[in-house]
Each structure stands twice: as structure tokens, then as C-alpha cells.
């Protein structure tokens, strides 16, 4: 395995272990994996960031 792949694999593997069965949250009849929950949380974070972070316009727009 190339060194870069080994390093990246070890790095991400230490954060997220994909070699075990997934973990799930149970909320009434709702069942969701933590991975899917993480994606939803990330979408909310990116959505809020997209609204709050100023957009750098091109120079010379005369605004």
C-alpha cells in the first residue's frame, strides 16, 4: 500500500471505524445511523455558514 494511502487510512480509520457494524440511534419509530445523522448535522452547519459568511465579490464591481 502506498505510504500516503497508509497514512490517510490510519488517520481516518482512527476517527471513523468502518470495520464494525454501524451504530444507530432509536427515537420512537425513527431509526437512523450515526453516519446519516452526521451528514444531516453537516448540512445544517454548511447551510448556516453559507448564510452567515460574507461572500467576497469580484474587484471592480463598483458596489
Amino acid at each position, binding site marked *: 500500500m502506498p505510504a500516503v494511502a497508509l497514512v490517510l487510512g490510519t488517520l481516518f480509520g482512527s476517527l471513523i471505524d468502518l470495520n464494525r457494524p454501524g451504530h444507530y440511534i432509536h427515537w420512537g419509530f425513527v431509526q437512523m445511523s450515526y453516519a446519516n445523522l452526521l451528514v444531516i448535522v*453537516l*448540512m445544517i452547519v454548511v*447551510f448556516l455558514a*453559507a*448564510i452567515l459568511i460574507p*461572500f467576497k*465579490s*469580484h474587484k471592480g*464591481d463598483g458596489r
Partner: protein
Amino acid sequence: MTIVDPKTERPDQADLDKAADRPEDADQWTAKIRTAAVDALPPQKLLPDRQPAYVASWIYVFGVATVAALIVVIGTGLVLAVFGPNWWHVSPTGLFVNSLHLWSVEVFMFSMVIHLWGKFFMAAWRGKRKATWITGVVSFLVTVGAAFTGYLSQQNFDSQWISTQAKDGINSTGAGAIFNVTNFGQMIMWHIVLLPLCIVVIVGIHVLMVRLRGVVTPFPAKGESPGGDSGTPVATGAEVRA
């Protein structure tokens, strides 16, 4: 659309020139369609250099990010189709392209959901933009089907497991008679022919509708004139480079 000169009651020459190379061809369906298309979407409107100033926000980036991801999805899908499952399951390059296909779909769905939220809170259907909104909703639903049939087309135990889990759900809707998720041949044809075709056509119409109606205006601030509330562009003159 034919503009008639009220003085002479004859069609304006410039309009005829736009419709056809020769005036006698102006009533042909080809000339009429071309004229209608150019009237609705002149080249400057189809591919504009500038956008209204309110478009200078990160929330407007996610629509084009979705389209960019779709291009990668289709490109990697074409490569996978050329080399086949033995390649994408075994070869290092095949595994890499397979991963690109998966992760571009992740980016596509991620961007599309943020785009959807942004447009929902802007009420982006204002100002005669209902068709834009509806084509966006339909494209979202079709992409869910495309992603699902993609899981079924992997050709591994994962896809077999998903198909046997899904069949009861699909059968309970009554659609199982014509949409058999355990029929691999049917699922892969839906995944690589029917649904991509639908997505490209619907997204194409969606983008053309955005170009036709323009980007929806923000809600007016408190105490401001409600000119923008209808969603029709306000002629402030403030623009930014696209």
C-alpha cells in the same frame, strides 16, 4: 412573435430578418420556433456576465455546485459503464473511479438539499417561478430513485441485501408488479438509461427556467417598499460579475 408596423400594417423588417434568412420563409415552423427561442432566451440572458447584487452570497453557490457534481456523476458513470463490474470491484483504478462516482453523488445530494433549503426560505416560487420550483422538486424525487437503483446496481452482496430488503416495501405500494427491485437487468437499465435521462432533461429545463425568470429577489427589509416581495427583479442597477 411578429411585430407589425402600425403605419404600414406590414411586419417589421427587422423582425422578419430575425425570424428567417428570407422573408418568404418567416411563416415556417423552424423560423417561428427559432424566433420564439431567441425572444425568450437571447444569448446574453442565457449565459449572462452579470447577476443582481443580492446573488453575491454563498447560498447561491449550491445550485451550480449541484450541477457541477452531476457532471462528475455522469462522467464517472460513463467510465464505469465502459469497463464493467470486474474492473470497478477489483482494479485499483476501477475502485478509485467507483469511489469518485459514490462521492460525487454524495456531494450532489448534499448540495441539492442545501440549495433546496435556501430556495424554500427565500420562497423562490415567487414572481412566476412556480415551474422552476416544481422542476426542482421533481428532479429531487427522480434523483432519489436514481440513487436507490444505483445501490441495486453495484453487483455485490450489498446490492443483493438491499434489493431483498427493499422488495417488500416496493411490493406494499403495488409497484412491484412493474418495478421489480430483485430484477438486476431492469434496475441497471433504470439506473444508467431512464433515470439519468430524466434527470438531465429536468435539470436542463430547471436551469433554463432560472435563466428565463432570473434569480428570485430577497424579501424586502422591514419598512422597505414591497417591490421585491413579488419576486420580480427590482431595477436597482446594482449588479455583480457572474
